[in-house]
């Protein structure tokens, strides 16, 4: 028993520390690293090296908790916008340009901490509530997804319209970002349909089928943006307190938890979309609440989705990490559930501490070294992973996805439209039109 407890503690801590490093590299997703675990496990599962589930499961929880919290570091400190997109940037980046990047990171930590507390508080209810919720909602998933897709498109509105010599030019200026958003949605949906039906990725590495596309859609454009932006980051201050009170924290955490859990529970919906819906639902206009809610939403989405896999009687598999773990082990009963909650709490506490440490380190680094070097390193790692796992075909997919992922960056539309890669093909399949669409596209 004692050995098991020690194993759980050590592996949770190890997972959190590993993800503390991964999380600080811009655009490198924890799932990309987790794939290494799958590949390793597939190779050694039948040997004495086969991983012990009491190590692998808390390790993965530590990995996801750490990444969900520490990922704030590159988002705040390394995702600095250039002057052309200053008005579009997230509040965290505004904080950065005001020398308050550390404060923004800590506000996000408040949200993450609140998210962990909420997950722990709701954990005893989930085994009773989730099976019922799943039974009730499963038949309706299709139209809920379509509704969300429609909301994502319709909730964007024309911006600008002030430049242009003619009315038509000004109309185009106003609708440019909107059209770019729609184009991104359609192109990413098309790409998703191809990847899910007749993927060029070798079948032997099908578990990383979507990885080159995700790297291209979300990772590479961010890195390119960072490399070419050339922004000088002002001097950053490390205050002893943060500008926040209980009400602001409560508002942010509650909105973030709602959005994050919504995204965690519903398939395909991501934390960004969940956060967007929750933000609109709670009419947030306070930047502090917004940052806190984003911190909570991101954590609840990633960690909650993984945690749902362990909820007894629920049989819910959401998120990439749970799907990866499912190929190795399937949790059983309340003991595994309690174990994973313990790992979550432990990893959560450690990662909040690590966020403070890593934020200070990064602040020092970016003031001495050009942060673009980190972006170059990240770019190399990502390309290396894609080529290593999926070969040149994967590289081709990544390049096409990068071009699609650059559209929202260059036209200032929502990057969440790139999630069309999953939402559109899955919604079509759920509606039962998958075979017809595949036939129409010649993909049968």
């Amino acid at each position, binding site marked *: 028993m004692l050995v098991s407890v020690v194993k759980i503690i050590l592996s949770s801590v190890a997972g959190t520390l590993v993800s503390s490093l991964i999380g600080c590299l811009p655009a490198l997703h924890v799932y990309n690293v987790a794939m290494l675990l799958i590949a390793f496990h597939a190779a050694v599962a039948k040997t004495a090296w086969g991983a012990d589930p009491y190590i692998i499961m808390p390790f993965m929880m530590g990995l996801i908790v750490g990444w969900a919290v520490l990922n704030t570091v590159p988002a705040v400190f390394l995702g600095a916008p250039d002057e052309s997109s200053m008005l579009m940037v997230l509040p965290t980046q505004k904080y950065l340009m005001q020398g308050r990047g550390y404060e923004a990171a800590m506000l996000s930590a408040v949200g993450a901490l609140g998210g962990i507390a909420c997950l722990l508080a709701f954990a005893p209810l989930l085994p009773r509530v989730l099976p019922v919720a799943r039974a009730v909602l499963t038949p309706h998933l299709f139209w809920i997804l379509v509704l969300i897709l429609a909301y994502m498109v319709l909730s964007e509105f024309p911006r600008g319209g002030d430049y242009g010599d003619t009315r038509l030019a000004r109309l185009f200026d106003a609708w440019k970002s909107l059209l770019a958003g729609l184009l991104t949605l359609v192109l990413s949906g098309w790409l998703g349909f191809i990847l899910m039906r*007749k993927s060029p990725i070798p079948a*032997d590495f*099908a*578990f990383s089928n979507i990885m080159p596309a995700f790297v291209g859609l979300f990772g590479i454009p961010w890195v390119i943006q960072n490399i070419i932006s*050339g922004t000088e980051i002002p001097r950053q201050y490390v205050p002893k307190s943060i500008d926040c009170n209980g009400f602001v924290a409560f508002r942010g955490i509650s909105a973030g938890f709602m959005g994050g859990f919504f995204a965690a529970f519903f398939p395909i919906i991501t934390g960004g979309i969940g956060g967007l819906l929750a933000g609109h639902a709670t009419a947030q206009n306070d930047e502090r609440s917004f940052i806190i809610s984003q911190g909570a939403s991101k954590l609840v989405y990633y960690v909650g989705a993984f945690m749902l896999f362990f909820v007894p009687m629920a049989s819910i598999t959401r998120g990439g990490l749970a799907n990866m773990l499912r190929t190795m082990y399937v949790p059983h009963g309340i003991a595994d559930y309690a174990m994973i909650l313990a790992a979550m709490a432990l990893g959560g506490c450690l990662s909040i501490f690590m966020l403070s440490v890593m934020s200070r380190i990064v602040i020092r680094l970016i003031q001495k070294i050009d942060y673009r070097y980190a972006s170059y390193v990240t770019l190399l790692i990502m390309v290396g992973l894609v080529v290593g796992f999926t070969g040149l075909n994967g590289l081709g997919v990544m390049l096409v996805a990068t071009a699609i992922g650059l559209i929202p960056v260059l036209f200032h539309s929502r990057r969440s439209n790139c999630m069309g890669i999953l939402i559109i093909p899955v919604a079509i399949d759920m509606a*039962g039109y*998958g*075979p017809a669409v595949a036939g129409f596209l010649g993909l049968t």
Partner: protein
Amino acid sequence: MTTPGNIQSPEGKGTVCPSCHRFVGVYDRCPYCGTGITKRIPLRTIRIAALVIAGAGMICLHIMAMYRDIPAKPIGEITPAMNFGYVSVKGRVNQPLRFYRDGDTISGVGFGVEDATGQLRVRAYRKVAETLYENGLVLRRGDTVKVAGTLRVVEGDNISMLLQVPAHLEVLETSDAQTVSLDELAEVEDDRSVRFSAAVSRIMFPNSERAPYRIALKDDTGTGSLVIWPNQFEEIKDRDQLMEGTLVKIRAAKSSYRNIPQLQIESPQDLVILAAVSADSMRDAAAGTVSTPVSLRDISSADMDSIVTVQAVVKQFSRPREGTRAPYVITLADSSGTELPLVFWSDAYEQLKSPDKIEPGAELTAHARVAEYRGRLQLALTDPAGLVVKKESAGTTGRQETEKEIKTIPDNKTDEISGTTQAGHREMPLARALKSPDGTKVTVTGIVERVIPSTSGSSAPNRVILKSEAGPVTVVCWEEAWSHIPEASRPVPGAEIQVSAAMATYRGNKQLRLLHSDNYALLTPGRSQGQSPGTMPLKDIGIAKLGLKVIVEGTVETISHPTSSRRPYTISITDGTTSVPVVMWEETWKSLTEKPVTGSTFRIRGTVNEYMGARQIRVSSGTFSGPSTGASRQRGGQASILPLSAVETTEPGTRITIQGEVSDVDKPSNDRAPYRITLKDGTDTVTMVLWKDTWEGLSAYARPQNGATLIVTGTVSEYKDTRQIRVDSTGNIERIK
């Protein structure tokens, strides 16, 4: 802040001439000194490039995908790294295709595929399943298919495939079905498909939603048992016409259940009703006529295997010589002048209603299958009970009338013996009756020594053994007659009965054949047999008055635990032939000092009530006693051990008993993983989960090994969308082979 005066790149390039340091704006060359100006790449260019690359790249990817073949993989080479991959596999169907319904709509479909390296389960849902259903797809064991879909790999070696396009399921080759008669079934290998025609002799309706229909069949060579699952039964065309006597053509997979051949249809289309027993035909049959007979001249080899009704005159009746396996042959002739032999074997002969009337000149009607023997057409009798002699030969009639005058008891004397002696029967002592020739109708009185009821699912008769000076005498009584004898009057050990029956010889032993309930009378009641005093037989629950307080006794078949606090425990008890649900609320369950387990025999006091149109017994507090045998391993009858295919349709949480042969033992790779034992029985393959402590508690002999046959009691659970059975106690595993 940015102002028009300082619009320039961070490096100072692009807007100011590096030679004369004057502002040059958007010019590529300085308008003042002519120096070339290095410009940054316009954002517009990057935007256009991104759009062009995205569009062109997508078109290239699409073309590549269109002309790319779906990769084919042997099942054994599928690894966790291939999770979510879209691949195709080619293999043999090892679990037939089954559609699942949600109300009136098709909600899913599933079947199993195996190749030389492994096996996987293929599933499809909603529209894909509906399309397959509309296409009338049938997949049976042994069919060869090529199927492509998305892989799901769970915990290393549990592989399934999601079929997303109906066209990605190709049937490459359908398996052959061997045409057999029912007596040849035992020689057919398990899992082989067979085709035959037979008559329905009995239909046993399921006693719960999860249980199958069981249909007893008979042809001129023997009997058989057919299993049909409710979802298949509901799809059978004209199923309303399926009743006793219906002639059916069946294609089924043969399996063995407790070493008894069992048949299972693999598709609802595999059961075709050839000749229904309509109300008219039943009336005709009662009147001694059968509708729509065909002329013998019209029967040709094109009718091979089809069932026909013929009406013809007996030209010759040849009985087999003693000690041979030759059939009885009736040469039939009709007005067309055509002659055809009608053949049947001794089993069928014993079921004939009027064998003594079959003589040259007699006119009869019969249901028979068109067959061929050594190149000549013949008719094989399919329904012995349906052979009706419409018009006896002159010789038979004259002889019978003479016998009636000489041997029967005068009508005016029948009242004196309480109406128990039937016209046409000679009353005689049992010992003397045994010396009478076959076909002699006798009336005998005797004391019942024991009663051997007909086995559930078989068409064998009930047997009543009477004591006599010459040794025990068997009276056989088929279900049609038996069921008409009132429950209270049925023979029990010690009872004195009188029967009017025909003498016959079966396997060298004389026996009396009781063909009608009117020919039976209970003279002196005997001691109760098997039934505890004061208990009501389960079969009477169906007609018992609602609200009646009853005591019943039976073997626990299944236990359904409630899925919510507003649902009761439901325990199905059986006496081997009838099952009755017993319901109780949680507080009653908790109050039981000894909880019922599958296989134990319980005595229950409760109230008869009705739920959803079906009778059940509601148990109130403290009235559930037992088990009367005390042993949880005891099983009252065959019904308590379910075939493995029942697991897939059993609600999780239900405790059931199954029997199967161990085909694989997967030992855990670590301390927290269970042993996974794969059981098979010809109807399905089921995983039994056994935790390490249970495994270690088993004796070396009881530990599952490949090839061992186990009887297992456990709880059905769902794991990775598949039902399995969890066994939590060493006492719930019994190795029988």
